């Protein structure tokens, strides 16, 4: 049994805006059911390593998460982005078959800059990465 040491970082919108210019990872969530950005969705980024770190952020008015992580922390390894879709759909008085969505990916090169897109409806989702 390993000893998990983890840190949770709650980003304020101001801090996120400041860091957005140099962030190597950005996220965009679109509600394809309504044809609108998915606003104020809870999103967390998990670094899946012996030193687990979790970053939390809300999507902005464009459905985007900017400045989630800085370049120094975005080291090669396995990451998971978790989208709290159930809470989001409930805020719209809607339901979804997916209580949450997790996308797990691997970073191999520290200089990678990635844009992760998620398109959701109540019965489907599509995710793709732009590098």
């Amino acid at each position: 049994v390993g000893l998990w040491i983890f840190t949770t970082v709650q980003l304020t919108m101001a801090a996120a805006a400041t860091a957005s210019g140099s962030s190597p990872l950005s996220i965009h969530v679109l509600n394809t059911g309504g044809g609108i950005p998915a606003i104020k969705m809870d999103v967390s980024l998990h670094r899946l390593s012996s030193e687990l770190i979790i970053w939390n952020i809300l999507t902005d008015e464009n459905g985007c998460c900017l400045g989630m992580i800085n370049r120094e922390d975005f080291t090669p390894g396995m990451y998971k982005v978790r989208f709290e879709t159930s809470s989001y759909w409930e805020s719209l008085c809607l339901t979804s078959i997916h209580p949450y969505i997790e996308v797990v990916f691997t970073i191999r090169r520290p200089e990678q800059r990635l844009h992760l897109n998620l398109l959701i409806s109540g019965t489907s989702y599509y995710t793709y990465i732009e590098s």
Partner: protein
Amino acid sequence: MSLKRLQTLKDHILPDHKPTAMAGSPSPLTTHVLNTAMGVPGSNMILFLHRQDPCTNAWTQITTGITNEDGRCPGLITKENFTPGVYKLYFETAGYWASLGETCFYPYVEIVFTITNTEQKYHIPLLLSRFSYSTYRGS
């Protein structure tokens, strides 16, 4: 991962090559893996079906399987065992792409879904490329 190794793993998971559902009772839950990058079924992909305990939130593995030449995996669950709750399909995508000599951005894909009406059939496919995937609820 070589095809021989995949066959060995398949024999370990399903030694008699029998579907886990009872004969004559098709599974109310089905899946279908499609390799959209190459326009072919996602065959020989290892997958697992889990159900979440509503009290502890712990996951219990129900079925292990490997997709056939059509990218399907019959016999995921019996009608009797298909109770309302939260389920998870885990797809071993890294091993699949490695068998094709490719890398993949996603080491694995987990699709979590809620079953409310067990009288209905649920089809949860996975359309996969190296840098994207999608899923939807079919019937």
